[in-house]
Structures are given as C-alpha cells and as structure tokens.
C-alpha cells in the first residue's frame, strides 16, 4: 500500500497455488513439532522434546525469513 498525495493504492498480489500448499505444509509441521515437543516432555523424553522445540523454532525462523524476502522482492514501486 503506498501513500500518495491524495490516493491510496492497495496492491493485492495473487499467490500461486503452491504457496498455499507450502504454507499449509509448514503449518502442519509446526503443529506437529510443537505437539511432539510438549508431549515428549510428558513422556519423559527430554532429548526428543529439545530437538522438536529447536526444529519448530528453526522452521518458524526460516518461514519468517522466506516471507520477508518474498515481500521485499515483490514490493510494488511507489506510484503517484
């Protein structure tokens, strides 16, 4: 969205289908990893819990970086 002199332009970018597929897969992994981490503590499997927490964190960071980079690459030029 760019702030022009007297108009607002809202850029809506259509994401390809695979983006949503990846996003869904990512969400599934995140849920799975966090659930595994929490459940592993209950099961007394602390190493499994630690690895799961780390994996969930890394996956979240990677997704955030990918998101930011994707947004930067497709940032619309300012219009007047």
């Amino acid at each position, binding site marked *: 969205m760019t702030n022009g002199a007297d108009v607002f332009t809202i850029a809506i970018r259509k994401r390809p289908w695979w983006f949503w597929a990846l996003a869904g*897969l990512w969400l599934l992994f995140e849920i*799975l990893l966090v*659930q*595994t981490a929490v459940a592993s503590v209950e099961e007394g499997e602390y190493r499994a819990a630690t*690895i799961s927490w780390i994996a969930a964190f890394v996956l979240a960071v990677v997704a955030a970086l990918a998101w930011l980079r994707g947004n930067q690459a497709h940032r619309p030029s300012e219009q007047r």
Partner: protein
Amino acid sequence: MLAALTLESLNPSVDARSPKVRRAASRPFNRSAEDDLRLAEYTPAGRMIDVEEGRNHFGRRALLKAGGFVTASGALGSIWALVSRTGTGGAVRKRARWIKVVDRPTLGEKTAEYKRFSGNDMFALYRPLKIQREGAGSFEAEQASKAKRVAAWASEKKPGYSLPDIQLSEGAWTLEHSTKPGTGLLSWTRISVRTPAELGVLRHTASPEEMASMVKSAARLYGAGLVGIAPMNEAYVNLQAPREDEKEKDKDIVFEDVDVPAVTDARFVIPRKMKWVVAIAIPMDLDLLSRTPTSLGDAATAMGYSHSAFVVASLAEFIRGLGYQAIPCVNDTAQSVPFAVDAGIGELGRLNKLVTPEFGPAVRLCKVLTDLPMACDKPVDFGLVEFCKGCRKCAEACPSRALSFDDEPSFKTKGPWNNSGHKAWFEDSYKCLQYWQKVNSGCGICLASCPYTKGAQAWIHEAVKATASIAPAADGAFRIMDNAFGYGKQHNPEQWWRKDPPSGGRG
C-alpha cells in the same frame, strides 16, 4: 526417488556382528566401572549400542536427508493416521486403518512340525542347563552371589535397587504371586459368580459377532489394552502344567469330551468343546519400563502380570455368569504369543515376542479359554516384519547378546526353550536369564528399546507407525531418527519417585 534415497544412503545396515563395536557415549549412570568389568561378557557395549564405526556411522548429510525424509513422511503419515482411526474389528472395537487384517500371520505361522510344548519354560530349564553347562554347584553359587549383591545394592541405596525400589516391585507382584493355575483367581471353575440357573434364567445367547463384541467390552473394562478372539489350536496348549518346584510331579494337560474343566492331582482336563480363546494384552507402564534393568523396571513387568491375573479372572467369571465355561490363564497352560498373533493383537518381531501396533512389545499377555461361541479375529500386518529386518535395535541394545542379528527369520531354534516348527528370529533365553541374575532383576531392555514402544501422547509416533506400515522404504530413516531423538535410553531411576504416577500404572 524417495525410496532410492532411503535405501541407498539412509539405511544404517548395522552389522552388529562386527568386532568393532564402540561403547556407547555414556555409561549408564547407575552402573560403575567395576560393574562394567564384571558384566563385560554380558554387556560388551553398555546399555545401548547406538553408534558403530565405519560405514555404520551416519554423517551430518545422511542425518539431514533422514530428517527431511522423515519430516515429509511424518506429515503425510500424520494425516493418514489422524483420518484413519475409524477401522473396525480386531483387538479393539476401533483400530487404525493402517493395521491391515490378513488371512495368515506374517511370521510365526506353524508347520506340521509344530508340536505341543512342554510347560517347563525357560525359568524351569535354567537351573538344569546352568548345571549342565557350568558344572554342579554353579547355580547355587550364582544365586548366593546374587543374594549378596541384592543386599549390598539395597544397603548402599543404589539407584533402582534401593529397598523402596525392590519393595515397589515385590508389592506389584503380589497378585501374580498369589495365583496358581487351577486354584484361587485362576480357578478353572466358578469362584463366586451366580450362574443363570441360580438366577432362574436361561444362559445368554446371541450371534457370534455380538458375543465377541460383548466379551471384548468386558475385557476392556476389566483392564485389557487389546483383546482379540482366536480359534482354539490344541498345538499351542502345553503338554504339562508348569511345576512350582522340582519336588512336584508333572501334571499333564489333556483334552477330553467333558462338559466342565477339571483339575485333579494328576492332570488338568480341558473340555474339547472349548473352541475359542480370548487373547488379551495388558500394556506395561512405560515410565517404569524406561528405568529397566532395575527393580523399578521389574515393577512394570509385575504390574502387567498382576493386572493380567485380575483381568482373566474377572473375564472368566463374566463368561461363567453368562452360562458358559471359562479357563483363565496368564503365562500358564498355553503359549500366549501364537494365540495373540492369531487373534490379531500383533505380529511376531525380531525379539521373538509379540509386538503390538499400539504398545509395541511392552505388553504382558494372558488368555481365557472358553466354549462361548464367538466370531474369531484374523491376524494383522502393520509392516513389522519388514521393519524388523532392517532395524536390529533390540538386538543391539540387548546386553546379553541373546537376540538374533540375522537378516531373515528362520526355522533354526537356539535351544530347548524354543518350539520348532515355525519361522522366527529365535532368541538365546539362557544368555538372557543369565543376565537377569547379574542385574538382580528381570531385564526388558529389548522391550524398552523397540521403536514401536512409545507413549500415546505424541501424534508423531502414530504418524511414524502409519507411514512404516505403508512405506517400508522409510524404515531405515525412522530407525536413525529414533536413535537421534534418544528413544530407548534408560531413564534415571531416582527421578521416578519424584513423579506423579498415573492411577493403576499405565504411564
């Protein structure tokens, strides 16, 4: 592509017969260096042997590949597992769809050579075998040495062997130790239930399917984890009742055309009309089992057997109350594993024990023989035999080297404790029991280390099992990840007392 990736680069192909077996990174915390030396011949590589040299040492690249593959498989498997818990039949009313029902057992199917087995199991065989192999007095010397160690470890409050640890186990054994085939809880005739005749009604009748469903519900209520119905196979029934001590005479177990079971001074009589067997698996407490081999681990076994006695006694009374005959058995009278395989409770695995899809091998088995007509279940296939072919984790973890490392199961038995006439990965029970004497308790490391022995809380376990059942190519990767996640390692016995154990011990 995924299959090729897994098979060529991920499968550890552990050749544990290699002399270059590296000791696990850390010695079990409850064992001193002196203990290690003493147990050296039994524990060549410590509690867990999870890393080997050379080609078996997987690198970072392989680990990353395994991680990626397993994550992808896990995601797909979790979807499959979560949507598939609507299956029917088998050992519980609703079972996951990835547990396929098959016509013949995947392993352990009997040939004509399979014969009724002596009731004198490994516990009865151990003493004469010990004397035969190591000379007169060797057994007594071993027991005396064991008694000294028990006292010493209890005095020094060794973790897992302190007096409270020992007595926790002893307390858990109480019900099992107070049973004897044919008497008390395991009576072959009515204990206290009122029969239909006493109530003034006819005995209960229904279709075999309804009867099976009813019996399963009752068994589940009494505490069974898994229940299945198998047809009677007389070859699975022992020839003799197990002896309590050497002074007792062997009692034959016979089939006769009689109406009610009978126990006399000379023999046990099973009516031929008893054509059905309710096979039951009692889940062990994983929190205790993860502390094996200690008295705490032994308590998990004890709880399993004591629960078994209660479940079969209650179920037998229930069946008698419906107007039929029932014989409750724990480990006695017949072989539990083949009945459980036939009833679809699980498959025979590398440790030559029943492995269930839900609880792995961490179960204790028991059964009720009956003349109550029921619809029988069929064996199951959840990909275990293929998994076991490439896994070997139990065999590597076994400190006494009692389990088979062979690639394929065979007909080759290891001793008089094995019954020939079926294919299996036969175990050396003599070595196994010898190790029991060294650690002053039952062992169960193979049960705890099996990748199928997992708690029910984490969804990922169900996802992995589901994926393994449909994609054997992923088995090697799962095995690597199981080690990487630290599963199967011994937990600290001292910490158990600071936990809040679940009611009835099913943690």
